């Protein structure tokens, strides 16, 4: 028989048969890989599909070309521009492109809409019941909000009129409109309503040169047509694209972090499961090596076996776990769609890519882990390997552990010092990476030291058994401990960052939103907010009990080629009310004029490169920056000038919001009712409590992606930790039986295992919490200001730490139960018969 045939003969009997006859160990590996692949596949699918879809939606690949008609001053009246819009389709020379012009729609406008009824009807039934009924496909997140599982008849009350729509929930593979939302799809806005902008959509993509040249022609024509009416701007949409690029950056960051964390935890899970499985055949490999099988043949035996298991596991992961994948994908895309206001639909290509990538990645991880494990196992000294008593003994190498911890500690100290002295996002990310290594290495060090140090505990039998096991089998514990440490660190770090953000925002809101009543337009839209009537502020000031009325103006402008938001407010009054939290600079003395002075948001200071004393030119006026302040109301650069300066730049521009201070003891409810009575349909009146609640709601919605990251990390960490610890206990079943046979009670055995599990869990909790605090500090104090431009105050709250302890407690409890079951099943008669 040839050498190759001999190898296959052995493989069939040594590896393949073990998979059938002793399936427990391969099954654990297989399940681990299937789980990891399912999650990785979902995350990769979402990542690939959503970023692709996001890019398409902002780059114009599939985006219809848009022309925006907006105001220069005053309001835009639909009736005034309607003749020009109608004339587009009548123009004979646009015949070539006329068919490409879509419905003229009022884009980016939100009206006060009340849903008065949702009836679950099939679209056919609904159409039969309501002749001429419009049909809409709606995004899954919106369908969830409305409680629409498939199709429904929705009744809406919009701007005083009632409208009915037949709506159908979008499928995952359905390419719905980027702004597929009932509110913005309404075309029958009450006539005569003043608007801020109107968008024309041309079918065809931005990248289509023919459509673009046609659009230029229409732009010019519209400009000429509208020149006789109120001043208007006609231009292609730019701001949404720029904003989209910013959002994409943030989204890409979130997706990347989530993918990295998931793959890291999946990797540790697979690594640990495979390593334990490989170490399980250590003695048998030593036997066949003694009989003359080469080391490379042994390696090949293990690697092929592991690759087969990994491949089968990965395929099971992406097929059997498909519903899980769909659920995770749906959960994530609907959350992201809602937050970023874009349609994220995994296409077939991205799905295939995510699936294939997950299968390849997880199979390679399994095979790679097997290769590393097998190299150690196949290279074991034959003398030692053929003696079964030595089999499970895998102590740590003390000098190596100490050297590693010392090296990583030095590196961490250097990086933290560098970060404090010379902050940069790269160093901050490096600190996060190194602190995870440091926590893992510290865990290994304590795992090495403590069993040696805690000699006093040895008088108790269970403690002696546990410390002995920790000392001799530390390497078996290490990876599960590291997985737990990393997971806890990430959970704590993310929670602290979100908590700090929340605290900072709460403090900021309490200062900025000083005032009793806040008025804004009921007609609002992203990117170009609708305005309030000019005369409203004066009307409110006349209401008895009102102490002060502060109108705030805002418009989009540019500084150089950078889009900015320009705000106008009575800066003297606002300084007196102390509503700005200055990062640098301050208000000027109250006896001096604010004319020609401005304050810049932190984002503006960073993006425009301005500081206190800098000059900025906005809409032809030059202003000196007196201070930079914290601003969470917009991520766009904001320059605030004095109200008088603003009004000189933007004539007849209505206020964006109005803040009202009441005299002490005045009845808020009655004054609020009086204000609402001034313009019942077009304004929204809120008190401070409602506004703060609204801010909190928006914050929670924005951070739902972080929540999904935390859920995935939690699930993976839990599964990883449980499976690896379960494997470890399973590996030790013979040792437990022997101990039982020689007289150790079941209770002592359970206590011993409990001590081991709690010990590792405790270490992971301590290391994870310390690392998590450092990660949270890095994210809050460095990454947020450097990447997103927000200065946050780091708040060390106890809640995430308690959550981590609960997590650790759950795992420890589950493992104690497993230990109880395993020890309870030991039968003395067969305790040693496992040859």
């Amino acid at each position, binding site marked *: *028989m040839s050498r190759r045939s001999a190898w296959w003969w052995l493989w069939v009997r040594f590896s393949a048969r073990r998979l059938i006859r*002793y399936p427990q160990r391969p099954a654990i590996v297989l399940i681990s890989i299937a789980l990891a692949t399912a999650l990785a596949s979902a995350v990769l699918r979402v990542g690939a599909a959503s970023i692709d879809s996001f890019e398409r939606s902002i780059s114009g690949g599939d985006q219809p070309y848009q022309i925006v008609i907006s105001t220069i001053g005053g309001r835009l009246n639909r009736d005034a521009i309607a003749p020009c819009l109608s004339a587009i389709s009548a123009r004979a020379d646009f015949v070539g492109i006329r068919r490409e012009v879509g419905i003229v729609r009022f884009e980016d406008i939100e009206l006060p809409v009340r849903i008065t009824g949702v009836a679950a009807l099939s679209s056919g039934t609904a159409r039969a019941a309501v002749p001429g009924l419009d049909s809409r496909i709606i995004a899954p997140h919106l369908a969830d909000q409305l409680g629409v599982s498939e199709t429904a008849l929705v009744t809406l009350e919009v701007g005083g009129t009632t409208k009915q729509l037949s709506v159908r929930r979008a499928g995952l593979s359905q390419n719905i409109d980027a702004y597929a939302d009932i509110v913005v799809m309404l075309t029958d806005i009450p006539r005569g309503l003043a608007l801020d902008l109107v968008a024309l959509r041309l079918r065809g993509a931005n990248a289509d040169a023919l459509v673009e040249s046609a659009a230029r022609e229409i732009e010019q024509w519209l400009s000429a047509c509208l020149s006789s009416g109120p001043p208007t701007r006609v231009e292609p949409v730019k701001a949404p694209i720029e904003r989209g690029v910013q959002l994409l950056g943030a989204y890409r960051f979130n997706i990347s972090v989530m993918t990295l964390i998931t793959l890291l935890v999946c990797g540790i899970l697979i690594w640990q499961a495979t390593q334990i499985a490989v170490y399980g055949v250590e003695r048998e490999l030593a036997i066949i090596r*003694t009989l*003359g*099988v080469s080391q490379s043949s042994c390696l090949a035996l293990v690697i092929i076996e592991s690759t087969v298991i990994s491949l089968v596991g990965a395929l099971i992961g992406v097929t059997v776990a498909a519903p899980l994948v769909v659920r995770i994908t749906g959960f994530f895309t609907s959350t992201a769609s809602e937050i970023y206001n874009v349609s994220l639909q995994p296409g077939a290509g991205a799905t295939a890519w995510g699936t294939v990538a997950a299968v390849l990645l997880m199979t390679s991880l399994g095979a790679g882990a097997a290769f590393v494990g097998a190299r150690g196992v196949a290279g074991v000294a034959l003398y030692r390997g053929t003696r079964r008593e030595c089999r499970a003994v895998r102590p740590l190498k003390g000098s190596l552990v100490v050297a590693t911890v010392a090296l990583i500690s030095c590196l961490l100290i250097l990086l933290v010092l560098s970060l404090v002295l010379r902050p940069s996002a790269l160093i901050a990310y490096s600190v996060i990476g190194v602190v995870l290594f440091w926590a893992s290495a510290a865990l290994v060090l304590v795992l090495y030291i403590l069993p040696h140090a805690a000699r006093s505990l040895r008088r108790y039998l269970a403690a002696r058994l546990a410390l002995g096991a920790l000392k001799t089998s530390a390497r078996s514990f290490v990876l599960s401990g590291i997985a737990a440490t990393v997971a806890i660190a990430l959970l704590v770090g993310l929670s602290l960052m979100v908590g700090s953000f929340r605290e900072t925002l709460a403090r900021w809101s309490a200062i900025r939103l000083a005032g009793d009543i806040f008025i804004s337009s009921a007609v609002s839209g992203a990117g170009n907010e609708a305005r309030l009537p000019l005369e409203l502020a004066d009307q409110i000031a006349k209401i008895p009990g009102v102490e002060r009325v502060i109108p705030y103006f805002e418009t989009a402008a540019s500084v150089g080629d950078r889009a900015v938001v320009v705000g106008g407010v009575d800066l003297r009054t606002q300084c007196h009310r102390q509503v700005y939290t200055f990062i640098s600079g301050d208000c000027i003395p109250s006896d001096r004029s604010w004319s020609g002075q401005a304050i810049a948001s932190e984002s503006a200071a960073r993006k425009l490169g301005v500081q206190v004393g800098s000059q900025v030119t906005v809409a032809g006026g030059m202003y000196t920056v007196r201070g930079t302040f914290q601003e969470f109301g917009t991520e766009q650069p904001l320059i605030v000038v004095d109200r008088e300066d603003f009004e000189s730049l933007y004539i007849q521009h209505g206020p964006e919001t109005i803040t009202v201070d009441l005299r002490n003891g005045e009845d808020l409810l009655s004054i609020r009712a009086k204000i609402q009575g001034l313009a019942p349909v077009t304004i929204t009146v809120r008190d401070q409590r409602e506004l703060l609640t609204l801010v909190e709601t928006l914050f929670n919605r924005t951070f739902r992606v972080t929540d999904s990251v935390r859920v995935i990390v939690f699930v993976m960490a839990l599964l990883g930790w449980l499976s690896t610890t379960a494997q470890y206990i399973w590996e030790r079943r013979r040792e437990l039986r022997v101990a039982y046979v020689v007289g150790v009670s079941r209770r002592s055995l359970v206590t011993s295992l409990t001590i081991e599990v709690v010990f590792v869990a405790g270490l992971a909790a301590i290391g994870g919490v310390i690392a998590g605090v450092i990660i949270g500090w890095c994210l809050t104090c460095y990454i947020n200001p450097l990447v997103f431009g927000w200065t946050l105050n780091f708040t060390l709250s106890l809640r995430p730490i308690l959550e981590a302890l609960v997590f650790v407690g759950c795992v420890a409890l589950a493992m104690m139960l497993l230990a109880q079951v395993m020890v309870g099943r030991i039968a003395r008669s067969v305790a040693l018969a496992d*040859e």
Partner: protein
Amino acid sequence: MADVPVVEARAVSRSFDSGGCVVQAVREVSLTVSRGEFIALVGPSGCGKSTLLSMLGLIELPSAGEVLLEGKSLQGAQEKLLQELRRARIGFVFQAFNLLSTLSVEENIMLPCILNGVSEEQARESAVQILKTLNLENHTKAMPNTLSGGEMQRVAIARAIAHRPALVIADEPTGNLDSVAGESVLAVLSALHHQGISIIMATHSEAAVARASRVLKMRDGAIIDES
């Protein structure tokens, strides 16, 4: 050729690093095993018997001195050569049997032949023949975990001799067995000796010593007596 010893150890020593402390397991032992010899190696636990056997069986290399297999010095030999020599010229019997749990009795015995390039049919014939000799013909298709200790050790012996090695190394082959099973194993080894196979066996058993043609006593890593 007949005069060339099967295996020869020349002043071999072996030391181990045990927790930073060097343990001298075997000290300058010289030993010659001639063809057809049955040597019993006796001595207290920890005296270096197993270490000496693993050097003679090419599992371990000596820290000092040299081992010659059929006249060839193996000083500085590569693992590949040692592995080929182990596969072709040596058979092992361990105290803990060390049968492969996923292979049947017959397949365990066939394995050394298969590894040496013998066809599957011939390997099977040879295994069946040996099993008959060892009165195990009823267990041909059985899995190792269904056998008694004595049966497992006889299967281990069958595996050790299946490829007709020049030397069988047996490390306390009766250590895990009761007296009856131990006696049957010793009977098999005696029979092999009478067939001209060289055997070197570490043992504590007086019955085993009685069957050996030469007895070497070890203490503290050295051979202190020979009879």
